């Protein structure tokens, strides 16, 4: 029980970190800077999903993290591809 409280706290810290990476996504001077912020947000959200899945004690929730880790990366790839073509 105590361990689950600690896991919830860890997930909360990861959420705070994701606020910081959103800040880089909004501040960044160039488009690639913002995409770096988005990529960091991806990784942090996957970590938060795994941790919260254990903390909330519902195993089915961890499956979302797998789907998410495999799909969210397509968005990053697509934006990178567009930046490459669109600006040159």
């Amino acid at each position, binding site marked *: 029980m105590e361990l689950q409280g600690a896991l919830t706290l860890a997930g*909360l810290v990861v959420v705070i970190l994701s606020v910081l990476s959103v800040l880089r996504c*909004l501040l960044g001077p160039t488009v690639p800077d*913002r995409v770096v912020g988005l990529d960091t947000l991806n990784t942090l*959200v996957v970590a938060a999903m795994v941790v919260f899945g254990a903390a*909330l004690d519902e195993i089915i929730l961890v499956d979302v993290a797998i789907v*998410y880790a495999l799909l969210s990366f397509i*968005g990053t790839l697509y*934006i990178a591809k*567009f*930046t490459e073509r669109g600006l040159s």
Partner: protein
Amino acid sequence: MEGLAHVGLSAIMVWLALMAVRFRDLLISVVTLAGLGLVLSLEFYLLRAPDVAIAEAAIGAGLTTAIYLIALRGSRREEE
């Protein structure tokens, strides 16, 4: 403690949506909207709706970005 996470995530979502409307460069708006989709998926996850979260992850993170970028290729990048 979970309530704090809900408050934080909702605050980020409102902020991201406002900034997505305010940016003049539409590519940056698309990046911001992708970030909004990611955070919204985490919020659905915390509300214990895994099926909605999977749909939001697939549509919000992958499909919406692709569709907006295809539309953006056919128009100008800067807003008037």
